[in-house]
């Protein structure tokens, strides 16, 4: 009895446990990045040069300067897509291979909190990468931003992020069911998504139904709306009205987070019942 009444023996429950789990999973990622900063070179600087190549393609084609801005914004947003793809979705599969997944499921915490912790832990590198690309665009390529509505811009960004990370959680569950295919599926979700979501050109340039189909990926409408809001001539290149895009992003956010919750609960259930999900099959 004396042992359980000691200072460190109390148990967090409810939202305290949720927050503690987020912090606990984010901690090793943040600390790990501080202990070895090689990621700055390979995750930050080199991809930025890759984005620069697309800028020079537009320059070589004598494209209007707006397109340089579009590429820079797309390049910045790739950081978020890569983050959910490699640091969330396929990370859960990697955790399984390492033997951590079984511990996550055994522990009395929420899987959503674990995934949010991963996202938050990776956010340092992600946000820094997005920021560096944006600043690079401003100072090196002379990209100028003229925000027409800060409120709408804030709403679009936040909703796009909620929907995107909700999607990341959904994908994490699905990737666990894939097994070894997960790695390849994540790999496959790069270029096709960069193409369909218009990371380097306005989505309006694609046929309507292709663009409409690609809108299931939150960054498609998020980027389209942000381009309309931060570039003076952005409205000419907009796929849909910004308010409609905000509405769709809201629906996507609610849907993805809800589905993710159910999917994670389902994964947890079959992991406990069948004991197969946490099994590493190489």
């Amino acid at each position, binding site marked *: 009895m004396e042992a359980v009444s000691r200072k460190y023996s109390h148990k967090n429950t409810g939202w305290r446990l949720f927050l503690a789990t987020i912090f606990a999973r984010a901690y*090793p*990622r943040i600390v*790990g*990045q501080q*202990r*070895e900063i*090689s*990621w700055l*070179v*390979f*995750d930050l*600087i*080199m*991809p930025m*040069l*890759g984005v*620069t*190549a*697309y800028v*020079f*393609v*537009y*320059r*070589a*084609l*004598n*494209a209007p300067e707006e*397109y340089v801005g579009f590429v820079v914004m797309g390049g910045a947003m790739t950081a978020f897509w*890569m*983050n959910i793809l*490699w*640091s969330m979705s396929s990370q859960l599969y*990697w*955790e399984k*291979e*390492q033997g*951590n997944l079984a511990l996550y499921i055994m522990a009395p915490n929420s899987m959503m909190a674990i995934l949010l912790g991963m996202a938050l*832990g*990776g956010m340092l*590198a992600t946000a820094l990468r997005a920021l560096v690309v944006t600043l690079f665009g401003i100072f090196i390529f002379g990209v100028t931003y003229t925000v027409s509505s800060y409120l709408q811009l804030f709403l679009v960004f936040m909703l796009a992020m909620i929907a995107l990370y909700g999607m990341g959680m959904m994908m994490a569950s699905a990737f666990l069911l894939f097994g*070894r*295919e997960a*790695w*390849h599926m994540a*790999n*496959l979700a*790069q*270029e*096709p998504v*960069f*193409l369909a979501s218009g*990371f*380097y*050109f*306005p989505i309006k*340039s*694609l046929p309507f139904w292709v663009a409409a189909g690609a809108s299931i990926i939150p960054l498609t409408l998020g980027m389209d709306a942000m381009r309309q809001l931060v570039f003076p001539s952005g409205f000419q290149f907009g796929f849909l009205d910004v308010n409609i895009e905000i509405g769709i992003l809201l629906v996507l956010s609610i849907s993805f987070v809800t589905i993710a919750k159910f999917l994670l609960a389902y994964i947890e259930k079959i992991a406990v019942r069948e004991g197969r999900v946490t099994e590493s099959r*190489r």
Partner: protein
Amino acid sequence: MQPTISWRSFRMAAWLGWLIESNWTDPFLFAVYSIVKPISGAAILVVMYSIISGGNFDNAMFPYIYLGNAFYIYVGAVMTGVSWAVVDDREHYKTLKYMYIAPIHIPLYLLGRGVARFVTGSIAVFITLAAGILFLNVKINFAEVDWLLFFVTLILGVVMLALLGLLLAGVTLTVARHEGFIGEATAGALYIFSGAIFPLDVLPEWLRPIGYFMPTTYWLELLRRSLIGNVAEIFPTLAGFSNLEILGVLFGLSVLFGAVSIWVFRYCDAIARERGLIDRTTNY
């Protein structure tokens, strides 16, 4: 080192790499996977080009971009194939330590692991080229192609890229696994300095010397010249050089980069052994 050990290390690693790359799914899905990724990468540039040019694919700039991008697939594939094997074996399968104590030659083992990516990369390059010829009016007259120059350049370039991959494998041995892929990140960086999708003249003058120092610049130029010589020679970047001169520069730079790569790998390998990094796992 016995030649049989070298050959066995390379051959078995190539077979192992191929199994890892291909047996995760059924052949149909693998074929779809092999097609969709490269086609999408090329399609990004095609869409960018068509938006600005209004769909005029007859301009010499289009085949320049398209062919450069198609062959650039090798850069990412081969370099990543060799360097990713370190992460895969060390942190995923946890077998790198066993490889180190087995009677094999580690650099050749890693180079062998890159062969699978070279094969899948070749499929991607072929599909991309075929799509360009069939659907996008990329005009390659097969009767006029300089096949000798093409194959000599291709083989020399792939060997050069594999050795660069070895350099990156050495670096990978000494760093933690973060989310990215060192090979692909480096390929992304080289994209800008190799004249892959735009002539080097578009770069600011002070950046161009970096491009002139990269073997990939000469490699891509020769591949373009061998396939569409009359179109490739329009661009002024290397217009003053003959094919033989460019081949000589490519050979010289390949030897130089190859020597540096081997030295860097040995250096990093020694550090990794000394610091106990051969079986380190980093799961952030």
